[in-house]
């Protein structure tokens, strides 16, 4: 079941798990509003470092980076990632970054 998410009249389509259906549609006002929805009231500079890193990585590699990668390469360490994006940093950060659901490895 698809959902719609509205910010200032603009409609963003989410897939059934709540990820932006089309990553191209992403913009900062989407990030700010969806973050609120996920319990993050303000996107700080550090949040944005993670989001920008993840979007750039996705653009280059076509996949969402692993938590390990983000903690090593985004400039934001593991502990901070957990306080910035509580309860599952990678999933939350992916949602806010407008990326697809991270692949879980079996």
């Amino acid at each position, binding site marked *: 079941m698809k959902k719609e998410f509205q910010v200032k009249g603009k409609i963003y389509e989410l897939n059934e798990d709540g990820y932006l259906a089309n990553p191209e549609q992403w913009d900062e006002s989407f990030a700010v509003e969806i973050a609120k929805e996920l319990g993050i009231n303000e996107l700080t500079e550090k949040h944005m470092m993670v989001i920008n890193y993840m979007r750039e990585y996705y653009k280059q590699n076509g996949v969402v980076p*692993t*938590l*390990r*990668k983000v903690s*090593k390469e985004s400039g934001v360490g*593991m*502990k901070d*990632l*957990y*306080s910035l994006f*509580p*309860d*599952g940093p990678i999933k939350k950060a992916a949602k806010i970054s407008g990326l697809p659901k991270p*692949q*879980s*490895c*079996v």
Partner: protein
Amino acid sequence: MKRIAIIGGGLGGTIMANKLAKALSEEQWVITVIDKNPKHFYQPGFLFIPFGIYSTKDVVKPKKNFFPLGIEVINSEVYKIEADKKRIILKEKTIINYEYLIIATGVNIVPEETEGLKEELWHKSIFDFYTIEGAYNLYNFFRYWKGGRLVLNIAEMPIKCPVAPLEFVFLADYFFSMRGIRDKVEISFVTPLPGAFTKPISSKILGDMLDKKNINLVPDFNIARVDNKDKYIESYDGKKVPFDLLVSIPVNMGDSLIERSGLGDDLNLVPTDKHTLRSKEFDNILVIGDASDLPTSKAGSVAHFESDILFENILSAIDGRPLNSKFDGHANCFIESGFDKGILIDFNYDTEPLPGKYPLPGIGPFSLLEETKMNHFGKVMFRWMYWNFLLKGIDLPIESHMMMAGKKRLA
């Protein structure tokens, strides 16, 4: 003479050596297997050692027993792969040139990746069972243990044989029940995954089994450190789980060779095309088994299914043809669940584990995602199959691609 070099003579490397030796002419090709350890370990057997079901001698045989005649075997550590020069450098500086390279170096546990894991308590009240030493030390510990809090923790995914930690707690439940001290042992399963397993249907079924066996599930736990003094593990978001005995599955990483050679990702896994099994970077390198970054389980069954595909593709490459054989991520794992029962799961890149019968639709004899005695028997037989058929590259009556026949889709 042209060379196909295989680094790693574990499960995947040995199967490939056997298949290729049969197919290629000895006048044109030399097949060279290089491995640093002369012993072959039946790793699935490590699970049973702590509980005294297998002893160490049940799981070790000389590697040379399984290599075909007519190949070159080198007992040495590979120090570096210089892929752009198509050559390998051994620890003692010998240089080996190759036309094609198969990387089959597997993964190892790296407890050093987690703060406090490999300190005072390591192999005293913190154990692994992914190495023969860890499994054996845990066996000795269990012999005298009177009970307490047993915590199993998976440090990070992916790990090889992702069902082994579940099997461990199921067997622990069985073992302590048989010893009459189950009421004195509190068992917790602490995992970074959101549930007992990754995919929704199997996660639900296996989670219910944990519940039934009175094993606590602690999901979404990403370990930051181990406190050796007060004996607890702590997650990055500050959750603490105290233990008397910690059984850890440390971070699994590819061999340091891969890192030194600049061929790996941040876990030293080789980026590999998930269908053709060819390295994403070098056309003459193929990867089999745990060493790749494929999004499927790191399991013996996977290495076995991959071997059919890799074999076809390397022959195509030699003939200068496109690599048409495509791997579908097929994995098939027996899950030992204690009390002489087992569960079987079968899945691939696109289809999660589903209930049904296997390998013959409607008949079995094995039941998927269901606890049966027959499945346990399958697991017991697996060791025999492994030594006698699997390693030698003899075809088993199982399809390398996953089949939907016999499976039930749940709504």
